[in-house]
């Protein structure tokens, strides 16, 4: 019989679950997000209560065994939200604690290789958001952007945008996950709010955005069009660099 630990979907929740695995010396254990859990007859499910103290102990314990990048990798992989990724993370942490030397680069272990690959994918998505976020100036003076990244990368982007846009209020909102990061000229905070997708409809644009905003988008489109060299056209390369799923948030690709 398997034990299935159900956690609330937060990173602290996952680390709390992993703490329990060690404390209770559980074997044959799997970890699942509550939203993915499906009761079945044969497995024992157990609900984990998120406990920041326990989570902290696991996180601090890791710092003694692996590098800062190694820990960062675990966090990034968690943000991928791949349904079974918790079990890979559990494997990685178990091996870390049972080994004298760091195992973070032991790529002969297929799960560790997998973790490395997933963390690179998350990195790439983060970098894409640094590039593809497009702010629009709202009537109340906030630079506002909506995104729908493949992975939950917003927490990774906050430092980049904070350093760059230190003198303007901005909000980047993840439409898929219904939360955003907001900078109020002092700090970046995570904000949970409902934003209607109406905000992206062109007929409603002037309800939300300034007239200048519409003009700057138009200028950007003009710039984009005129910097292209038609006799060098290469659509395959173009689409490789900007896959179509990102187009709807890029003013230069919406005509």
């Amino acid at each position, binding site marked *: 019989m398997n034990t299935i630990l159900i956690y609330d979907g937060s990173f602290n929740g996952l680390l709390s679950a992993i703490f329990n695995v060690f404390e209770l010396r559980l074997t044959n254990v799997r970890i699942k997000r509550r939203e993915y859990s499906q009761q079945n007859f044969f497995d024992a499910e157990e609900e984990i209560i998120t406990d920041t103290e326990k989570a902290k102990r696991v996180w601090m314990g890791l710092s003694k065994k692996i590098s800062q990048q190694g820990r960062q990798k675990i966090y990034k992989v968690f943000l991928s939200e791949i349904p079974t990724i918790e079990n890979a993370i559990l494997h990685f942490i178990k091996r870390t604690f049972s080994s004298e030397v760091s195992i973070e680069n032991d790529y002969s272990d297929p799960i560790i290789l997998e973790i490395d690959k997933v963390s690179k994918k998350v990195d790439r998505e983060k*970098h894409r958001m*640094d*590039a*593809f*976020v*497009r*702010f*629009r*100036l709202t009537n109340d003076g906030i*630079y506002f*952007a909506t995104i729908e990244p493949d992975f939950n990368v917003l927490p990774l982007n906050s430092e*980049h945008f904070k*350093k*760059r*846009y*230190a*003198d*303007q209020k901005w909000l980047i909102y993840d439409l898929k996950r219904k939360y955003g990061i907001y900078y109020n000229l002092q700090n970046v905070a995570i904000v949970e709010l409902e934003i209607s997708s109406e905000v992206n409809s062109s007929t409603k644009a002037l309800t939300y955005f300034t007239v*200048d905003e519409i*003009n*700057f988008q*138009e*200028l*950007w489109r*003009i*710039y*984009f*069009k*005129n*910097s*292209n*060299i*038609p*006799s*060098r*056209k*290469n*659509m*395959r*390369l*173009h689409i*490789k*660099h*900007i896959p179509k799923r990102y187009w709807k948030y*890029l003013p*230069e690709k919406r005509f």
Partner: protein
Amino acid sequence: MDFDRIKEKLSILADAAKYDVSCSSSGSKRQNKNNGLGNSSGMGICHSYTEDGRCVSLLKILLTNHCIFDCAYCVTRKSNDIKRAAFKVQEVVDLTINFYRRNYIEGLFLSSGIFKNADYTMERLIAVAKKLREEENFNGYIHLKSIPGASDELMREAGLYADRLSVNIEIPTEKGLKLLAPDKNRKDFIKPMEKVKNEIIQYKNEKSLLKKVPLYAPAGQSTQMIVGASGESDAEIMYTSAFFYKSFNLKRVYYSGYVPISHDNRLPGIGTPVPFIRENRLYQTDWLLRFYEFDVRELLNKEHPNLESDIDPKLSWALRNLDQFPVDINKADMQMLLRVPGLGVKSVHKVIAARKYRKLNWENLKSIGVLLNRAKYFITCDSRIFEGKDRTAAQLKGLIMNSSKSKFRNELNTQLNLFDHQNFQPT
């Protein structure tokens, strides 16, 4: 802002700037200060890509396309009958700031046609950069063109505001320059480059002694050459390139396949295809000089004035120098490993790290990422098999070409038959 007027200017002055290929926004050290706008200390970011597949990182525009010169290869030349426009300094500042705030760009790349004279033009470019830095507290990336013939004082000032400076020498040979740009002089290109080089050296010296030295062009200098406009050979291009890398510590030389823009009979006519393959081979050669410790004379010389278009220049060198192979992968030094076709800089480092633990065999090399379909003919490893044994250069070339797919296969089949760029001579 008068948006209608700006829209028209932008369409003209972006169009005129697009033949400059440089779009790099990396390599600077400028950080956000006093909670101002922008930061260019990280890696470069491509915010978009045009349909030709080129990265859009900077707002790349001309201040004006009015020009007193009449260079045949240039779309902005005096005698060309096109719409002319000029931005005001404040208009460029506003565009840059508003694009940057919306996360469209990493910064500004400002070039210009030459109006009145070199210094007058350079002063205007500097005025834009100065305003951005001092009035807007802008810490994004700024690339300014050094105007040929600009005075030392102005070049000194330009470097205090810009991250990168560049002068495009455009035509690789003096005789080509005389033919296509009779009112330009090679010396005028070199003068600002020389000044900027010396200022960068001085900045580095002072930096090692003093705490606070204002940044000077932290992302260095670059230049660009047009390929295929003046009948030059690949050797002439790359020798010029090597000279500029060495004499002026350039960060980059860009190669731009000539896009026909005029019916001038000194140039390839409109409709002539852009020489993509040749451009690519030149970049490969450039990489061999900068990262693979090749000397340009090994790759191009009297016997071989042009690169082969169907294979890359490293393979081409190896096939001409089969006496230097096979290389023993478990013993050879780094310099020799870098010369093996199928081994890149990354895989060379991995080979050197991995062979400390064990003698490497074919299997190990494959998992490290060595491209064995090429490398196997040029190396020996911990195995009895050596594939290159007793084969001639022509046989090896055939074997390798059959086992790999060039991204240029279509062009190689059609384009080269229609028009042989390598031997192009202006009529």
